Structure formats: structure tokens, C-alpha cells
């Protein structure tokens, strides 16, 4: 097979990967539109996709003003959760007593449902931004600390021994081996974290607040404006997807060796197909 045809095969496979999910999404939207148009489900209970888009456009600027608040909470909570999570992972990796003392508490925090703790946070810290940020920290902290700690601890023991034989300090071993070894786990944790963070912010706003997409949701729910409800649900979902995509972009930038590996693998595959 020639190089040109090998590259065409590869492009075709990329296209196929994108076309199938697109077809299934369009099919679901079409089915949903039919259910609404033919009133299989009453319109006030299930607005059609067209009505949802209409509601989104109608309330666009209002949604954006609420989105600003939700995004700010998400950003602050995520950054703080990541910093605390990463710092805790470093501490637990460096100091065994800290691991033994903190790890069970970290796990315990995750057994308490966010829905149960959110009203308490509102009660203790009021209706402003503080309880939302604390809830997001609690939600985002866990995937970061567990993933990163696992990355630190799974570093190649032989590589560490090699560094030790060169006289490397603990910090140098961290800087040259553990830090990089934990990066894939860290980014996996971060992907989960950003999606959870948006949901966490909305949940906290839902339970009490003055602004944010959660507050907007409670208002439209009370006025039975389900088209607006659907519009905000899709907006939240879209924001989560964009944040996950941004994490993927960041990961590619921070881990260029992964791209090099992919390029080499593809080159080898093409060579194999060619032969």
C-alpha cells in the first residue's frame, strides 16, 4: 500500500469515528422533536429541541450573567481544590505518618453525599460565594489527591534507585521522576474534577444563593418554564464538555512526549501497511 493510500485510510477512520456519534445524536434529537411535535409527551412537560433553542436565545444575556457567577465559583473552587489536593498528595507521599493519618479522612469525606452537605454549608456560611467554593473544593479534592498520590507511588523503583546512585536528593527525585510519572493520573483526575466542579457549583446555588445557573434553574422551575430549564441543562453540559476539552489541550501541551509516541506509532503503522 502506498503512503498516500495509507494516509487516506487513516483519515477515513478519523471521519468514521466522528460520523457515528454525530448520527446517533441527530437521531435522538429527531426522535425528541417528533415526540414533542406529535404531542406524544405534552409540550409543557417535554419542550422540543426547537423550543429549547428558542428559550436559550431569548434568555441568552440573562444566562450569560448567571454563567459568569457559576464559572467564577467553579474556577476558584477547582484551583483551590487542585492546589490542596496536589499538596496533600505530596505530603502523603513524602511523609508516611501523614499518609496514615490523612488518607482515611480523605476517603471518609467522599462517603458523605454532596447533596447532604450542601445545605449545611449554606447554613454555616450563608448565601454568598463561600459555601459554593467549599463544596467544590470538597468535590474536586478527591480525584486529584487519589490520582496524583497513585502516580507518585507508582514511579519506577529502578529509576529512583538509579537517581539515588547518582546522589540525587529527595527533591531531585521528585522533580525528575515522580512529578512526571504522576502527570497522566493528575490530568485524568483533573478531567473528572472540572466536570464535577460545574455540577457542584450548580448544586450549591440550587440550595441557596443570589446568582448563578443553579439559582436561574430554581426560578424557571418554579414558573414551570421547562424550555428554559432544558436550555440551562444543555448550557451546563456544554460548559462541562468545553472544560474537559480544555484539560485535554492542556495535557497535550504539558506532555509533548505523548504526541511524539503517537506520531512514531502512526509512522510505524503506516510503514507496516505500506509493506
Amino acid at each position, binding site marked *: 500500500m502506498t503512503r498516500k493510500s495509507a494516509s487516506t485510510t487513516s483519515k477515513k477512520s478519523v471521519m468514521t469515528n466522528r460520523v457515528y456519534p454525530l448520527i446517533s445524536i441527530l437521531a435522538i434529537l429527531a426522535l425528541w422533536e417528533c415526540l414533542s411535535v406529535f404531542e406524544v409527551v405534552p409540550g409543557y412537560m417535554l419542550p422540543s429541541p426547537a423550543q429549547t433553542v428558542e428559550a436559550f436565545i431569548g434568555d441568552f444575556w440573562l444566562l450569560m450573567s448567571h454563567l459568569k457567577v457559576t464559572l467564577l465559583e467553579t474556577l476558584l473552587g477547582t484551583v483551590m481544590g487542585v492546589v490542596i489536593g496536589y499538596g496533600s498528595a505530596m505530603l502523603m507521599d513524602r511523609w508516611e505518618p501523614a499518609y496514615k493519618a490523612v488518607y482515611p479522612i480523605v476517603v471518609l469525606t467522599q462517603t458523605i453525599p454532596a447533596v447532604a452537605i450542601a445545605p449545611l454549608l449554606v447554613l454555616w456560611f450563608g448565601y454568598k460565594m463561600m459555601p459554593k467554593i467549599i463544596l467544590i473544593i470538597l468535590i474536586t479534592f478527591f480525584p486529584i489527591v487519589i490520582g496524583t498520590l497513585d502516580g507518585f507511588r507508582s514511579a*519506577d523503583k*529502578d*529509576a529512583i*534507585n*538509579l*537517581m*539515588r*546512585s*547518582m*546522589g*540525587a536528593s529527595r527533591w*531531585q527525585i521528585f522533580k*525528575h*521522576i515522580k512529578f*512526571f510519572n504522576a*502527570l497522566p493520573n493528575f490530568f485524568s483526575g483533573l478531567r473528572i474534577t472540572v466536570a464535577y466542579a460545574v455540577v457542584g457549583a450548580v448544586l450549591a446555588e440550587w440550595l441557596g444563593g443570589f446568582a448563578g445557573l443553579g439559582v436561574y434553574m430554581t426560578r424557571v422551575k418554579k414558573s414551570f418554564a421547562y424550555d428554559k430549564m432544558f436550555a440551562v441543562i444543555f448550557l451546563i453540559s456544554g460548559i462541562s464538555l468545553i472544560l474537559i476539552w480544555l484539560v485535554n489541550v492542556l495535557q497535550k501541551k504539558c*506532555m509533548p*512526549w505523548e504526541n*511524539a*509516541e503517537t506520531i*512514531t506509532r502512526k509512522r510505524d503503522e503506516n510503514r507496516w501497511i505500506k509493506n
Partner: protein
Amino acid sequence: MHKLETKNITMKFGDETIIRDITISVDQGELIGLLGVSGSGKTTLFNCISGIYTPVSGRVILDGKDITGTTGHISYMLQKDLLLPYKTIEDNVALPLLIRGVPKQEAREQAAEHFEEFGLEGTQKKYPKQLSGGMRQRAALLRTYLFSDDVALLDEPFSALDTITRSRIHRWYLDVMEKINLTTVFITHDINEAVLLSDRIYIMSGKPGEIRSEIKIGTPRGKRQNFDLTDEFMEYKRQIVALLDEREIRDEDTSHI
């Protein structure tokens, strides 16, 4: 005075003695093979020499100084090439210099001076996964050399390579060792490799591991073109096989007592 000596090194893990009373000596520029069956404690001996382990008794002497249990004096290349997948080749080989505190750019420049000598031209900006097994070994060897151009311990440096690549890299290795004059002790399971590359061979066997014999290879390293096809080479092989067999049989006999 020898370049490197171990004097009566004994190492235990718990109650189990892994190596006992190991005494070896290496002179400046020598290439010493350490040959033995699996489990005879060769890697443990290397970990003691490099300072990763502190032996329960015995001493490691480098240039007349006692360096027992201290790291950072002798370069060490482990079984795997252990090139860090997230660093480019130039940063991988410059790692020992960075650990020593040399600024990054200066470390890269120092490393770059040796790329041609080690047959690594054009690989500076590549990642380890983009190189073949043989090239990776060369890079790992350059990293070992940059840590110390004095004494190196190589733990089965070529065992992961296929036969053809290994044979090529043996020739290359002998050439490069002539140029850099690195005092080296290397572990191998391969009798051919030991005879082909070494000036002297220590044979380890038993549990706990002990030095059983020492064989000096008469033909100088510089005159070993097609050495592996000569009668002399075969004679060394026969001698080593006999020594290993004799030991293994004796060990098995005593293990029933």
C-alpha cells in the same frame, strides 16, 4: 593501589545472607565481567558498591578511600536502560550533570560534545520511545559515562537486545571503551559476552553468592577481531562452563544435606 576494591562484603536481608565475603579488585581502565547464574547476588553486590545498600560487613574502596554506603561516587547502569520517557535524549543523558547542579543549558552543551562519539547524532531532541533498542542502550551508556568518566557498573547492559543488535553493539562497545578508557565492571549471564568483552572475569555462584573463580583473558581487547571464532575463545568458554557446572552440581548436592 587498585582503582576499586571490595573487601569481604557481606549483605543480608533479614536473616538471609545474599552475598558473603566478596573481595574483588579492579585496576584503572580494566573491563571486568561478573558472571554467574540468576540469584547469585550479582545485582546485590552492585547495589553495595554503588552505595544504594550498606553491607552488613566489609568495605568498598575507591582510589584508596572508603566509600561504603555512600552514593554519588560510581556510575551505575541498571538492567533496563531506564531512560525517562518524558525527557528528550539530551535531557536524559544530561541528568547526572543536572543532579550535580550544572545549569540546564550548560549540561546539554556538555552532553552534546559526546553525541557523535557514542553514535547518537541527530537524536538530541527525540524521546526514548522514538529510538531503537540499540540506540537507547548507547544513550544510557552515555548517561552513565557523563555521571562518572572514572568507574562504571553495568548490570546486564545488553541483555534486552536481540542477538544481531547485541553483536553489533559489542563491537561498538569495545571501540568506544578504547576511546574513553572507562574502568568498568559489568554483570552478564552470557558466557560469550563475558569472554568477548572482559579483561578478567569473576565467576559468582551459590546461595549465598560468593566469588568462586577468576579468569584472565589473555588476548588484549584491542586485538579481538573475530576473537569469538578462535580456539582460544572456545577454550575459555569450556573452562567457564566446567566451573559453573561443577559449582551447580556441588551446590545441589549440599542442598540435600
